[in-house]
């Protein structure tokens, strides 16, 4: 315990010695944890009991920022999906880390405190995983809720249809209904990504290294959801031949995303401040553009106007294309195809260039930065890699100041030689052996309709617990 503690103190001292860095640290303190308070909505209630009015609920009110509250208010049904997403992230995180000393435990949530505890104040690997998995879970959960029909403001993918002559002249919902009749409304998984960016990345302006780390990890989480989407096609031409073929994207099970993120966790890159980063920092600091334009486009999520779709989709495309295409060109090119802006959604082609230019600037401010590895011999992190700033503590002993619960009382595996083995898990403190009897239902017989009969089976299990 002492060794690790000393190490951490040394690290702190080392960090504060750099004059440029101390400034960054100071800034970080003021906004510490605020961007991630929304995780608390996981604990506000059962997702199905969430009503659209509940954004007024004080428990929710205190967890969300103003912009997040507005997003929730303007997109009915989204709150339930967010609650589901947060719970999905927690359960997936706990599943992935069930065998490690840090097991993604959540605190009993109380107002003003962070759900995962003080560990997120440190820029370590575990924090990077929390950010990535929550961002991915929100993306996944919103996209799912759209196809469940529980969010009414999900947008259509209008990119594949050409202009319908009548629709352009009419405004509002009439045009939308005509668009649906004319060219259908194919599922737009892009809404999940768009929403996740607006919601999760609120408050992470990328002004200091920690905010850049959070932004990068949030983006990485979304990139993993996107990379795991698969295309499915069905032929339905004459006599079922392939003269007419329809294709759509399918979301992968979130477990697969969790596995991939865990693999990236194991190979995460430690990054550091560089000169070039400071230069962009300064730029971002003086630019008023970032906050202003993001809030204006968040409004766009709910206004059913073709103008706004165009803007949103194009932004989505600009932001995602360059970094993800490099990573894995095959599935991504297909994914991005549906997000192609159509002339339909752009009222005047002339405006295009101007808007593009402005957004280009914003992209540089917020999402387009390159983090440099701590060890210059390592390659710089890619868009799907997780990044962290400081080494993790050992998590062996309880340390409430740093939000570490320790491994006392954790179950371990006697036979394993890995981290879940009792030797490593209990940090050499030894362990206890208990025998328990588990009563389970077994040997069930079913009858349709409507009978289920089961026996009760008792099985003995041996449990090892760290001292």
């Amino acid at each position, binding site marked *: 315990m002492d060794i690790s503690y000393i190490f951490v103190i040394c690290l702190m001292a080392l960090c504060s010695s750099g004059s440029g860095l101390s400034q960054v640290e100071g800034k970080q303190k003021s906004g510490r944890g605020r961007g991630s308070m929304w995780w608390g909505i996981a604990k506000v209630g059962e*997702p*199905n009991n969430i009503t659209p009015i509940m954004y007024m609920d004080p428990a929710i009110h205190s967890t969300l920022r103003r912009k997040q509250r507005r997003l929730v208010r303007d997109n*009915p049904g989204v709150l339930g999906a967010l609650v589901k997403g947060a*719970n999905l992230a927690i359960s997936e995180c706990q*599943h992935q880390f069930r065998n490690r000393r840090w097991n993604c435990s959540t605190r009993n949530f109380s107002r003003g405190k962070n759900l995962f505890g003080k560990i997120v104040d440190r820029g370590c690997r575990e924090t990077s995983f929390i950010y990535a998995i929550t961002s991915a879970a929100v993306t996944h959960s919103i996209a799912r809720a*759209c*196809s*469940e*029909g529980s969010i*009414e*403001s*999900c947008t*259509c993918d209008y990119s*594949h*249809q*050409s*202009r*319908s002559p009548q629709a352009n002249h009419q405004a509002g*919902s009439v045009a*939308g*209904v005509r668009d*649906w*009749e*004319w*060219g*259908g*409304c*194919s*599922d737009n998984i892009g809404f999940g990504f768009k929403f996740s960016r607006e919601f999760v990345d609120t408050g992470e302006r990328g002004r200091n290294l920690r905010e850049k780390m959070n932004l990068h990890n949030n983006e990485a989480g979304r990139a993993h959801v996107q990379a795991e989407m698969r295309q*499915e096609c*069905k032929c*339905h031409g*004459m*006599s079922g031949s*392939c*003269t*007419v073929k*329809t*294709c*759509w994207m*399918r979301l*992968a*099970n979130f*477990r*697969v995303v969790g*596995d991939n993120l865990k693999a990236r966790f194991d190979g995460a890159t430690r990054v550091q401040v560089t000169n070039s980063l400071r230069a962009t920092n300064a730029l971002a600091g003086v630019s008023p553009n970032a906050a202003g334009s993001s809030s204006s486009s968040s409004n766009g999520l*709910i206004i*059913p106007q073709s103008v706004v779709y165009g803007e949103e989709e194009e932004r989505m495309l600009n932001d995602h294309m360059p970094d993800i295409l490099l990573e894995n060109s095959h599935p991504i090119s297909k994914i991005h*195809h549906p997000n192609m802006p159509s*002339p339909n959604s752009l009222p005047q*082609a002339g405006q295009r260039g101007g808007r593009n230019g402005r957004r280009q600037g914003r992209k540089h401010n917020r999402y387009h930065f390159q983090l440099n590895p701590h060890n210059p011999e390592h390659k710089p992190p890619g868009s799907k890699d997780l990044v962290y700033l400081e080494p993790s503590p050992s998590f062996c002993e309880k340390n409430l100041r740093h939000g570490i619960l320790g491994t006392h009382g954790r179950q371990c595996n006697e036979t394993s030689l890995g981290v879940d083995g009792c030797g490593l898990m209990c940090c050499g403190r030894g362990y206890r052996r208990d025998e328990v009897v588990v009563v389970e239902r077994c040997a*069930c*017989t*079913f*009858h*349709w*309709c*409507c*009978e*289920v009969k089961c026996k009760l089976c008792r099985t003995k299990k041996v449990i090892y617990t760290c001292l």
Partner: protein
Amino acid sequence: MSGTILENLSGRKLSILVASLLLCQVLCFLLGGLYAPLPAGHVTVLGSLCREDHARQNDTEFLLYSRGAGACIPVTREEVERDSMKMANELVHVFQMPLPRDLRDLDYSRWQQNLIGVLQVEFGYDSSSELREPPRELQLTIDMRLAYRNKGDPDNGWKLYAHGVEHRYLDCVPTNVGPTETLYSCDMIPLFELGALHHSFYLLNLRFPLDTPRQMNLQFGHMHDLTLTAIHQNGGFTQIWLLLKTVLFPFVVGIMIWFWRRVHLLQRSPALLEYMLIYLGAALTFLNLPLEYLSLAFEMPYMLLLSDIRQGIFYAMLLSFWLVFAGEHMLIQDAPNKSTIRSRYWKHLSAVVVGCISLFVFDICERGVQLRNPFYSIWTTPLGAKVAMTFIVLAGVSAAIYFLFLCYMIWKVFRNIGDKRTSLPSMSQARRLHYEGLIYRFKFLMLATLVCAALTVAGFVMGQMAEGQWDWNDNVEIQLTSAFLTGVYGMWNIYIFALLILYAPSHKQWPTMHHSDETTQSNENIVASAASEEIEFSHLPSDSNPSEISSLTSFTRKVAFD
């Protein structure tokens, strides 16, 4: 002696005609490419889980829905896991189509024509209890209920459309092997096909009955996500398609009437090729007939089958026409009497007939049965899939035989034409003009057909590869799939339109006057070498008036005697 219009048309007129037809072709392509949306759209619906009490399970009028007043409160996966019985035999997967979008409740329009549903299944095994791999062909028993509701009906006003307990075989691969659970993802299974999208909203309730004595659904661990993809034709595409049909229909009918009148003005009875042309025109007219308008008012579930049959008849007719056209130029006359389908071509056409019948039987087995039970699919059972495959392979083999035979016949015609070419200079001027015209006519059709077929194949390949649209520049984009469909449809219309015009009998005389033609003939009679031709013309019953016979037939017979 007069021939068809093609031979007598001056080069300038012909080029004007061909150019205007090509312009129409480009218009058809652009109509699909610029105005029509993708041919089909889809709605991907994730199933909501509802719990029902046992008392209502056999009541098929009882339907659960996930949106609107009185909707079931969905249960979450965690609630199912917490339940001691895992809610076995109590869960209903509910799919309500279409989904709301942009803060509006969408509804299906009758312009969207048809609805095809496919299901994707994900399930997981407990790794601890069942370590074995699931068998390759898992039989899944599904109790399916499809219901509909119209705009203006109350939210609970669902009416049962179809009910069935069906088996599907799943092909699954493990996607994730975890310590507690192994996840499997399965190939999509066809669920239902509706030939008529007549109502505004559709609802699907799926149950997976577990039954130990009947070994039903016991191999499945627990169901995870069920995703239904409902594919419909896009309304915009239907409108453009119908517009194309409505415009083309009167033109083809008009040109058929003109053609048939021309043929009947002659004093002889129509020749076989003329019959074939009019049949081809009739098949095309049947295909063009915009019957789909009726589906906007009436529920016509047989539209899918009907459109397959209409296309089938047209293709069968087109293939037969090519064969007969080549055969009529075969230059071997074994029977002196007028050729008919029955006397000469039944053997040639048997491949077309076999292929078409096998495809027809397959279609009846698939879409015909779906009229009665929309959940039926011949592909879902291993035996059915084998039977279906047999029919398709049979059709494919017939097509291959047909094309080999057609190529052989065309090769033979070209060889005969080559032979004839060598003797052309020795002929009289009128006769030479005549033959050159005939060869030209045959080659014209060959060229047109080859171009059309090549464009069809190229368009098909392009449509498959490009997948969607193609940006011309920033403002113009071409919807390739739709452009291919309208382009090909327009092309075969224009092709047959051109055939009916160009191969109609001409009123014009040959450049040499009629009487001088006779003098030439009488001159030739003196020449011993031409004696055979005289015999040819005299003993053919239909040649009572040589100036009116289709020069085509006379040519073939002539060559036969040479």
